[in-house]
């Protein structure tokens, strides 16, 4: 099992490190919000999901996209703006989608996918599908009215939704305490009558196990549940660099998070040969994806206005 988790975590980390490496070439002409440091949340949660379960995410969804099984080639091609991208080059990093994998949408406007997740869950429940929806969002999204309205409606209708708050302590450069009266998000969730879990240190095993319990309960008809996973963004809010020099946070704050990084911890415990094999395989896969992206064509001019409307 550790091998699977390691592979998942490493794959995402490596993809994003490659994105960061390529970025200065300006081949990726689009804002990218890297998940480096936060991979364990998506991986831990998605390990417990079925293929027919659905996820919705934010503009920071490279990790989620891959953890849920989104097509890697299509994702990299999308960052490159190519016609083979998961949105044909029209959405870029902030609007990843993979319908086949159940990644039903990500959005550049904070909080907007939370109600979408709830509505999707309404449809699933109405149909009696056993599937559920996981809604991923940041601590910043909790500030939005849409969060409150969505929590209330999901709880009211006992919908099969897992709310996953990736609390990385900041919204851009604003710490949680500059935006929220209290940091007690679980208490907030509980006030809607929802079972709520807090995971303190972003450990992938804990996240996976707690999610597994939540997911079983939801499938058994408990209604929605809430899980807050503490985590830490290693890179700047948007873009590939570090930003400790900016002054809004310190490297000292980051260091414990480096130390408890699930990828490193699991990697260190793996048989070095196994680890090397996995890394090698992943690197090959990622190299292929970047080559695929590089060699893919841009969408043709005739695509400018396709898919604005459907065919009536």
């Amino acid at each position, binding site marked *: 099992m550790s091998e699977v988790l390691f592979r998942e975590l490493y794959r995402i980390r490596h993809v994003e490190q490659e994105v960061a490496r390529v970025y200065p070439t300006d081949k990726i002409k689009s804002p990218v919000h890297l998940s480096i440091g936060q991979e364990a949340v998506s991986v831990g949660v998605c390990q417990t999901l079925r293929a027919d379960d659905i996820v919705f995410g934010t503009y920071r969804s490279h990790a989620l996209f891959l953890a849920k099984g989104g097509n890697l080639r299509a994702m990299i091609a999308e960052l490159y703006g190519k016609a083979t991208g998961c949105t*044909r080059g029209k959405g870029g990093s902030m609007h990843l989608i993979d319908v086949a994998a159940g990644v039903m*949408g990500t959005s550049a406007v904070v909080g907007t996918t939370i109600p979408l997740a709830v*509505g999707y869950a*309404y*449809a699933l429940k109405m149909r009696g599908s056993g599937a559920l929806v996981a809604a991923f969002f940041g601590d910043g999204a909790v500030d939005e009215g*849409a969060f409150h*309205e969505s929590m209330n409606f999901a709880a009211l209708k006992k919908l099969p939704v897992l709310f996953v708050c990736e609390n990385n302590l900041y919204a851009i450069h604003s710490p949680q305490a500059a935006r929220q009266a209290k940091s007690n998000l679980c208490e907030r969730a509980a006030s809607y009558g929802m079972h709520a879990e807090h995971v303190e240190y972003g450990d992938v095993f804990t996240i996976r196990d707690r999610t597994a319990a939540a997911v079983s309960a939801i499938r058994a008809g408990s209604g929605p549940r809430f899980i807050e996973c503490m985590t830490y963004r290693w890179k700047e809010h948007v873009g590939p660099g570090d930003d400790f020099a900016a002054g809004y946070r310190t490297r000292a704050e980051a260091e414990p998070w480096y130390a408890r990084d699930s990828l490193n911890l699991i990697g260190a415990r793996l048989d070095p040969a196994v680890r090397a094999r996995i890394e090698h395989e992943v690197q090959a896969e990622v190299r292929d994806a970047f080559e695929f992206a590089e060699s893919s064509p841009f969408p043709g001019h005739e695509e400018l206005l396709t898919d604005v409307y459907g*065919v009536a």
Partner: protein
Amino acid sequence: MTRKLSYAEAIREATEQEMARDPSIIVLGMGVDDFRGIYGTTKGLVEKFGSDRVFDTPLSEDAMTGVAIGAALAGLRPIHVHIRMDFLLLAMNQIINIAAKARYMYGGAVSVPIVVRSVIGRSWGQGAQHSQGLHSLFMHVPGLRVVAPSTPYDAKGCMASALRHPDPVMFVEHRMVHFQKGVVPEEPFTVPFGRARTLAPGKDVTLVGVSHMAVECLRARSLLEQAGIQAEVIDPVSLSPLDADGIAASVKKTGRLVVVDTSWTFCGTSAEIVTAVLERTQGKRDVSFARLGYAPGTCPTTKPLENLYYPNPQTIAMAAHTLVKGEGTRWEPRTSEAPEVVEFKGPF
């Protein structure tokens, strides 16, 4: 084929027939399942289709719009109902940032076939926040369809079309047209979007009236007859797509255009219709035009000011008369207030 229904009944019938045909259609919104049933337009639906498919919502316009969109992404066809269009201002983010854009920004991977119904209020002191016609805001944004039929026939046909349409449709109803009666076939039928309807023929001037203003334009046409002027009255029915070619064809004939909107003129539907027509006539036909709409201010509640706030058959006819007879001519037809406006006493 002489069965008459009110506009409200026509919407109800279309909804019921389409829901029977397509189990993916659901109806949500504040009060859709209560005893009033949104002015009768949703009456009986919960009894017939059950509370999974027809349900009341919290007062959460933003998230409930998102819920409707999310359900649409999962294959449902939600009709989201608002008793006043003004409340859509709480739903703009989901409608414009998500519903309008999802198909394109996801590269064609998804559809968002939602129908957003909303009612423009008027009369009986609706005032600043219960009277706005905000269709222009939605017309501006690609990815949305906007329809505002004025007759019971078109209401039924457009609702059926909306419920078979692949895109988000903003379905605009004016409270004062809910009372209009007209012939409506019982069997299901659709009215295609993007085609304007000529409500009455004429050769001297083209009157284009949006929603309730189409009704008022027909009344203006009768007044103009007294002055020997034959006005052609056109209801755009669908505002986006707009049948600019159809309207322009009439204007090419008459050479004169009066556009009357149930909203403000500045940067609105009437500016678009004028521009779209002139784009098609420039260099071909001299056209004189005028646009009318709400007075350029906030809607007052007191009756004497409310009366001045809206275009009416008299002001419409006078504007048309000036175009036909020239600036210098004075003519003031007698007219009485629209019966639907006089009789309206709420509930709001």
